[in-house]
């Protein structure tokens, strides 16, 4: 998203501005064309991020917004690190949206359809004018509260606003609308893809895979789905490689006190009649060691990723909220508890059986994992 200047707004969305712009384009047409041709030749002979940006700017100056957007989009894949290309793409899209605003408003006046509302809301979203976008979505949502495309558009809007403002509440609202859209559309691949992408973006890889599976089961050749899967697989492989290559070395990299703590915790756990499984992770989420026992309560196939997510979930926003570091998290079910205990730079994630989960406290967890609790807390 880019901020559009008042001059550009005038030139691209008012009748007088459009007339001035057209006159200017007609007058400078040969020069603008020659500039595009020259930048294009330069980019083709020696393609770099800066030649791509220069060509994109020439397209925009010549009012070739479709070409500018397509060029910026394809160049971004070639030069993913270039911040200028991201801005160029946002500018091209914003100018294009400004140019479409008048037409979209006229359409809405003549046809008060869902599509017309969504189109206008989408244009305002592209321009970063979120209150206006929200106004049109709320208006159409009032008449069609269970329309999946409206909730999809809400998801897009809150995601865009999250990118602009980094408000965590926007992200959770985005996911809520997308999940509702997914239910209403009976898992439409477009919604599932957006859900997968959003979860991947915030690091919920388990959930991202879940939605990706749905996308790829409906369309095994989905370019977006396969690209995201390849990206997630590469991330998982690098983590897995780290775990498999150096499980004991990782433990050895801990301080002697932390190593002793982990060793003691596993010995203590093995003697507990409550044991189901225990994992030890570093603060960054690498698994140091684990002990999994047979049990009817949980399925630990491919558990590493989920356990890592579980251990890191609680920590993500806690510091930002001013809550300080998390020392423990205890989740209870009918006859089981899952406890995460963070100390000595290590996270222990314990799965335990218990008849009285409601009475299970941080001290109960310590008593199960730490032989001399007082020495470690």
């Amino acid at each position: 998203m880019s901020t559009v200047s008042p001059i550009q707004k005038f030139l691209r969305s008012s009748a007088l501005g459009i007339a001035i712009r057209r006159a200017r384009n007609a007058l400078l047409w040969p020069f603008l064309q020659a500039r595009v041709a020259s930048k294009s030749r330069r980019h083709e002979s020696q393609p770099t991020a800066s030649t791509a940006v220069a060509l994109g700017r020439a397209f925009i100056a010549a009012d070739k917004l479709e070409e500018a957007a397509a060029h910026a989009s394809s160049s971004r894949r070639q030069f993913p690190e270039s911040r200028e290309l991201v801005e160029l793409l946002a500018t091209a899209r914003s100018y294009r949206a400004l140019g479409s605003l008048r037409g979209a408003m006229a359409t809405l006046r003549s046809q008060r359809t869902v599509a017309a509302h969504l189109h206008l809301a989408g244009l305002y979203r592209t321009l970063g004018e979120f209150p206006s976008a929200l106004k049109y979505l709320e208006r159409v949502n009032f008449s069609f509260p269970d329309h999946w495309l409206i909730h999809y558009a809400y998801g897009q809007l809150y995601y865009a606003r999250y990118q602009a403002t980094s408000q965590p509440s926007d992200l959770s609202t985005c996911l809520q609308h997308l999940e509702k859209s997914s239910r209403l559309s009976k898992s439409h691949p477009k919604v599932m893809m957006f859900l997968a992408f959003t979860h991947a973006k915030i690091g919920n890889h388990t959930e991202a895979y879940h939605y990706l599976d749905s996308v790829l089961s409906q369309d095994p050749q989905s370019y977006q789905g396969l690209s995201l899967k390849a990206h997630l697989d590469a991330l998982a492989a690098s983590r897995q490689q780290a775990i498999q290559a150096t499980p004991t070395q990782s433990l050895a990299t801990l301080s002697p006190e932390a190593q002793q703590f982990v060793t003691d915790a596993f010995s203590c756990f093995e003697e507990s009649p409550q044991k189901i499984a225990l994992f030890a992770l570093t603060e960054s989420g690498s698994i140091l060691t684990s002990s999994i026992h047979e049990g009817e309560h949980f399925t630990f196939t491919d558990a590493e990723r989920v356990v890592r997510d579980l251990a890191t979930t609680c920590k993500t926003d806690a510091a930002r909220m001013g809550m300080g570091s998390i020392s423990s998290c205890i989740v209870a079910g009918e006859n089981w508890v899952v406890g995460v205990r963070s100390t000595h730079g290590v996270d222990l994630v314990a799965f335990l059986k218990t008849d009285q989960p409601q009475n299970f406290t941080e001290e109960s967890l310590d008593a199960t994992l730490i032989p001399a609790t007082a020495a470690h807390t």
Partner: protein
Amino acid sequence: MRDILRQLNHEYGASGSMVITPDGIMVSSVMTSEYEEESMAAFISSILLGVKRSLRSLGAPEAMTSCQITADNTKVMFFCMRNSYLVVVTDPTHRHEQHAEIIAAAMDRITNRRIA
């Protein structure tokens, strides 16, 4: 609902409490000025959804009934009320087991309250 939460905060010594849906949407909340209501709701929603997602992936036999997170400055507790969760924010040294009946009474009042 706000009256019930206000009374709960007073009796339990909590710095805030709220009711959220299983989807993480805040229904009602009474928080002290220490925490910004919207941010706290987003944080709690994020944790609730994250924990539920992980448990689902691990094939947990049934839904979680409670969750207690202790940090340096705060303790956050979730209690399942079938179609919603009661969330209570306290001091990290607060002993829930000594005041569990206050939570049970509040949950009972919330689930059985009459809508005027």
